[in-house]
C-alpha cells in the first residue's frame, strides 16, 4: 500500500471559543486538510473520557479537545476540568501503549481562526507521521 495514510481526527470544540475560532478560520478562508470531524459541545468540560476512548476504539486516529483559554471559560472554569482530565488521559494512553500525541488539548479563542487552522494542520501532519493505531492496541 503506497497510498498516503489519511488519518481521521475527531475534534470536540466548545461553543463559545473554539467552535467560534473554527468558524472564523472558515470566514477568513484559512485552509486545513479535510481529515477532521468537529463535534460541538457547550464546554470543553463536557468531554467525557469515554467519548475519547470510544472514538479511538471505533477507528479515529487522533482526538482533539479544544476550549477557551484559561480564565476565559464561558462557564468560569469548565476548561479547568477539561485540563485535569487531559492530563490523566495522556498518562492513561501511555500506559496502554498508544502514542499520547494522538490526544491533544488546545486552547483556542473565538478570535483565533488562524490558530485553529494551524492546530489542525499540525495535528493531521503529526498523526499522519505516526501512522494508524496498531490494531492489537485497540
Amino acid at each position, binding site marked *: 500500500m503506497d497510498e498516503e495514510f489519511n488519518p481521521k481526527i475527531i475534534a470536540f470544540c466548545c461553543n463559545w471559543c473554539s467552535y467560534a475560532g473554527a468558524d472564523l478560520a472558515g470566514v477568513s478562508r484559512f485552509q486545513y486538510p*479535510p481529515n477532521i470531524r*468537529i463535534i*460541538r459541545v457547550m464546554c470543553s*468540560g463536557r468531554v467525557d473520557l469515554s467519548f475519547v476512548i*470510544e*472514538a479511538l476504539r471505533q477507528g479515529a486516529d487522533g482526538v482533539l479537545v479544544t476550549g477557551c483559554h484559561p480564565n476565559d471559560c464561558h462557564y*468560569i472554569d469548565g476548561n479547568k476540568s477539561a485540563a485535569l482530565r487531559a492530563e490523566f488521559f495522556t498518562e492513561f494512553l501511555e500506559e496502554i501503549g498508544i502514542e499520547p500525541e494522538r490526544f491533544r488539548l488546545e486552547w483556542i479563542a473565538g478570535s483565533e481562526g488562524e490558530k485553529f487552522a494551524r492546530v489542525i494542520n499540525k495535528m493531521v501532519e503529526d498523526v499522519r507521521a505516526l501512522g494508524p493505531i496498531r490494531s492489537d492496541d485497540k
Partner: protein
Amino acid sequence: MAMPNAELKDNGGGTEPKIGVFVCHCGTNIGGVVDCEKVAKAASTIEGVAVSKDLKYACSDLGQDEIQKAIKEEGLNRIVVASCSPRLHEFTFRNCVEEAGLNPYFMIMVNLREQCSWVHMKEPEDATAKASDLIRMGVERSKLLSSLSPREVAVEPTCLVIGAGIAGIQAALDVAQKGFKTYLVEKEPSIGGHMAQLDKTFPTGDCAICILAPKMVEASRQKNLEILAYSEVVDIDGYVGNFNVKVRMKPRYVDEEKCVGCGVCTEKCPVKVPNEFDVGFGMRKAIYVPFPQAVPLKYTIDAENCRQLQGKKCGACAKACINDAIDYEQQPRDLDLKVGTIIIATGFDTYIPMKKGVYSYWESENVITAMELERLINAAGPTGGHLIRPSDKTEPKRIAFIQCVGSRNHKLGIQHCSRVCCMYAMKNAQIIKEHDPETDIAIYYNDIRAFGKGFEELYHRIRMDYGVEFIRGRPARLTTDPETGNITIRAEETLLAKITERDFDLVVLSVGLLPSQGTMPIQKMLSLPTSPDGFLQELHPKLRPIETAIDGVFICGCAQGPKDIPDSVAQAKATASEASTLMIRSKHVVEPLTASINDELCVGCGLCTDVCPYGAIELQDKDGQIKAVVTEALCHGCGTCAAACPQRAIDQLQFSNRQIMSEISAALSHEKAAGGE
C-alpha cells in the same frame, strides 16, 4: 427539581423519526465547492430520512417555505439543516420549524460552510465526502433529539447596586428612576467613592465635589432608592431574577434616626487621628463624617480609636449630643434582601509602592502619590488648597510628575495602562500653574495617551500656554538630600539620548489603578471571571461590555477596568438599562440545556458538586439516601458534571451522552467498516 429526562427514556415522543435533510448551496459559498445535489442524494439513503433536498438559499423565505411545506406535507418530525454555522442561523431555523408546528429543539444544523467548503476550497471531492459524513452525524444525532421547552424564571423587580462611587450612584439613580426598588450598598460611612476626593476633573476642570454632591443628594432623596452606607454584602446566593443577599450594617454607634448631623459631638471629642479621606494628611476626630458633603450626613464612631469603646472613660460625645443619638451598645445588623438584578460598581484601589526603593516613596517625605496631591491642592483639603510640601511646609517651586507608577510595568507584573494618569497629571500640573505660574513642572513619561474628547487639546494647552515640560524617559534613581529634602532625579531622556540629573522640591507619583480589595469578596461570592489584569471580566469585550458570565449580574465603572468619570457614568447608565430591561420583562428565558440526574444511578458521591462552576448541584437527602440535585435556574448547561460523573448518572439535555456518541459513531462509520471492528 430535576427535569423529567424524556430523552433518556425514549427518543422524543416515542414516534419513529421521520427526518428531513436540507442541504443549502448558499449560492456558491457551499455549492461552489461541495456537490450539494450528490450530498443530498446520499443522505436520502440513510435510515430514517424521509426527505432530502438541496436548496439554493435555505435561510431565504423561499428556502424556509420549502422546509415548512415538507414538515406539513410529509409529516417530518426531525429537521437537519446543512448550511452555515449554528452560531449564525440556529434561531432562524428553530423559528422556522416552530412555525410549522414542530418543537424547535427537533431541528439541528450541520456546518457545511465555515467548517467545510470555506476551509477546503481546493479539495472539492474531499469536501463533498466530508459534507456527507457531517450530515450523517447530524442525521444520527437528530434521531435522539427530544422535545424541550425553554425555561422561564420570574425576575424580582428589585436591584442591588454594590459600591457607591460615581458609577454605583449613577446606576442606582437610573434604575430607581425607572421605578424599581433599588438598594445601594457602600462600605464606607459616606457614598461618593474616589471622585469625592478629587480636586478638579480633566479635561474641563470642573470641581469634582461640585458636580458629585448634587448627585449624592439626589440619591438620598430619590424615591425607591435606599442607601445602605457603612454596610457590606456578606453573602449572595440564588440566580438571575432571584438572588438572596445578606447585607451587614456595621455599627456606627450612632442612631441614624436620631442623628441630625449637627457636629457638636465632633467638637467635644478629645481624640484626633489622621483622616483616611485626606490620605493621611489632615486629621479627624474619633467621631466623624469623612467630609462635609457626606451622604448620609450621619456621624460614625471609629471604634478602634474611641476612648469609650476602648474601655477608657470618656463619653464626651454622648454628653454633647442633644438628640441622644450616641449608642455605644450598637451591634451589627443583618438585612436579608431578595433582588432580581445586581450591578457591581466596586471601583478601584490606587497602586501604593509597597517595597522600599520604589521611587523613594517610603524614604522621602517629599515623594507623594497623585491621590495625596489631589487632597493637597483641594480647597476643602487639609491645607485649604494651599500646596505645601510635607517635609518643611514650604511651597514647592520645582515639581516632577513620574508617570506609569504601577502601570505598564512588567517587572511588577502589572501590564495594563491605567488610562487616567496622563490626564490627571496634566490636569494637576495646570492647577498648580494657575496658582503659581512661576512653578517649574516636568512630567516624566513613557507615552502620552490623550485619547478622549478634549484630551489632546488639554495636552496642547499645558505645553503651549502653561509651559509644562515633558521628559520622555523612566527615572532610574531618586536621591534625597537629607538636609534640604530636595530630590534629584536621574533619568535617561530618550528623546535626547542623554542621561540627566535634575533637582526637584516635590515629586508626585502618578499611581495606577488596580482592582479594588472590595471587589474580591463579591467576585468570589458570585464566581465571576476576572480578566488577566485582575478586573472583572465582561461577557464580550466589544459587544457585551457590561454583562457578565452570570445572567442578571452587570458591571460598571472601574470595577470592570481603569477608566475616567465620563466612561464610568456611561457604563453605569448601560447597566441600569440592561438591569431594567430584565426587570420590565419580569421573566427571563433560559436555554433548556440543563443537567439532569438519574436518581437510580446516582450514588451521592458529590464529584459533580465539586466541578460545577455555579454551585448548581447540591447533595440532598432523598428518602434516606444522599442524591445530587440540580437547581435548574442556576445551571448554565456546560455539561462538566455529566463528564465528571463516574456513574454516568448525569446527562445534559440537547447534548446527551447518547447524542454525542451517535455523532462519533457516524463520523467513523467508514473506518469501522474498513477496519472490521
